[in-house]
């Protein structure tokens, strides 16, 4: 488990907000996934502090909380790459040229990665960021513009 980066200016506020919101949940095992969502919304990912806090509040063994967190693909156990976008690589997006666009724009993979189906196949190809913002019907020029414009959401 990786600890939260407490050097940033708002780290204390974000942790405090997480703890405050966590306490609004009933202390029942059933609220494990909602607790993960609170942590990810407040902190952007699930650092050590959040796993410990959840285990403590819901009275679930730490190992079980951590094991469950690893089973959900959308829960992040590492700090996300801010400003990064992820190209959908579902069947519709692949067929609509997702890989061709990625090759053409030549943006570093840590800034422009790949992700599984984003379920907006009717607007393929699409990309998303860690805020869940989705942009559809992409072209090479549109992708290049994304990294210039502030469309992070």
């Amino acid at each position, binding site marked *: 488990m990786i600890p939260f980066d407490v050097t940033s200016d708002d780290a204390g506020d974000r942790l405090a907000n997480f703890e405050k919101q966590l306490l609004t949940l009933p202390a029942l095992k059933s609220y494990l996934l*909602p607790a993960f969502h609170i942590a990810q919304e407040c902190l952007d990912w699930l650092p050590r502090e959040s796993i410990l806090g959840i285990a403590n509040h819901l009275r679930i063994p730490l190992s079980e909380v951590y094991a*469950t967190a690893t089973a959900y*693909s*959308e*829960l992040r156990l590492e700090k996300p790459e801010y400003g990064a976008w992820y190209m959908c690589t579902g069947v*519709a997006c692949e*067929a609509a040229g997702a890989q061709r666009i990625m090759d053409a724009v030549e943006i570093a993979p840590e800034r422009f990665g790949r992700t599984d*189906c984003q379920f907006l196949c*009717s607007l393929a190809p699409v990309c998303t960021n860690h805020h869940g913002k989705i942009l*559809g019907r992409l072209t090479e020029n549109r992708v290049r513009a994304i990294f210039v414009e502030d469309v992070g959401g």
Partner: protein
Amino acid sequence: MTIKQTLLKTILDKSSKNPVAKLFIHRGTCGEATDIVSICEKLGIIELAVSLNAEIVETSCDGRCWAAPSVTAQKIDGVGASYSRRFDRIDLDINIEELTEVLDLATVHNVFDDGATGLTSRFGQLDGTLLAAVELGAYAVAEKVFRQDQKNILSKIEESKLSGRGGAHFPTGLKWKLAAQNEGPRYLVVNAEEGEPGVFKDRHLLEADPHRLIEGILICCYAVGVEKAFVYINGQAHKAIESFSAALEQARISGITGPEFLPEKMAIDIEVRAGAGGYVCGEESVILNSIEGERPVPRFKPPFATNEGLWGMPTVINNVETLAAVTTLWQDFPPPTKLVSLSGNVARPGVYEVPADETLSWNGFLLSVGAKLETVPAILLGGPSGIFVHREKFEERIEMKNIGAGGIFVLSPNTSVREITNSLASYNERESCGECTPCREGTIRLTELLKQETVDLKKVEELIEVMEEASLCMLGGMAGRPVKSAIENFPTTWSWVER
């Protein structure tokens, strides 16, 4: 300032009354993914609407995803005449009169009429308020149904032959009856996980008409005797969660989920749970584990959920569309329909409501949605556990048992069936939860075998057989289905080691 705030300010300034038309701005996931807001601002759509005395309605995608970003104009006294336009394909001189008067075949998104009574009848027309939904018929069916005895309702559902719209097509009436027979407390779980690539109809339904789902939930809860329902929505479907949660709050506040509206002084607690990814999370027993706070892995069956579901109690697990479809069963002529999610090599991808009575051929459907049949070698039904339908079979009728959850991907001549099949196999490998060996190891071996230059057909078939028979859930059980279908339909795609 949102579009609505801007509009309100402008309207107040101009004291505009008695609008002559409505201008629906489709701000669903599709609209936002195609920059509808900034385009409306750039084109001065709001000012235009105000100058033409049109009321602006911020609404969802109407199923015509192909048209996004779009607005739809409708005369207040018009009879369903509407016209959507995609902004990047037209000149910018939009004329509401023209939009209202021009009716194009392409805009009829419910392909086969009965849009007024079907599941999509309110798509793209609601402004997010309860009032708008009620004005267009929400909760009218429930009100009628609540005057009936529970047994009559269960019989009605059985007689309707409604089957599960999540893909398994289990008879809904039988499921409800089985759960109702067992001692409570009973639960309802709404499966809105929709984690199958290529399927996006439930999200559209949740965004476009959340009150229809709530109405279906209430009918189910009353008929089966449920007081607690969980709606498990895919964690990536942010707009769907937002829209459904808002509608639920409206229903709560107005007493629709309580004894003011429900018969026999019932009160139904409906709770939204957001998922957190994983194709396997759409499997019903995985959802049960997830809600209970356990690891999201499948359970052994039997026992089935109708006997031992959430916390060991009888539980009905229904797909979003199934419950929404319940609200259409009490009409004089209930249209048996199925929502499908269309994507790929077709002019008008989106969400369509098609007949579920197997009267429609693939040719008919594909032509109606703008496919050029000569350029379509095949379609893929249902994503990673789906099948290919070769063009030679396009004359055949669309059968519900083959359509799964309703994902239809139309291939183009330059789409490689081999690449798609390998991509689906890799997806299943990544998404396997690892709980059972046949799936955990089998999906890895299958991917490896398919990547060989010359594929050992015998080994592939043996492996798929083991996975089908021994996997704990249908992720593993159906992972070989597209492979088998590709082999059957496109035998020359791979070079094979003969059997």
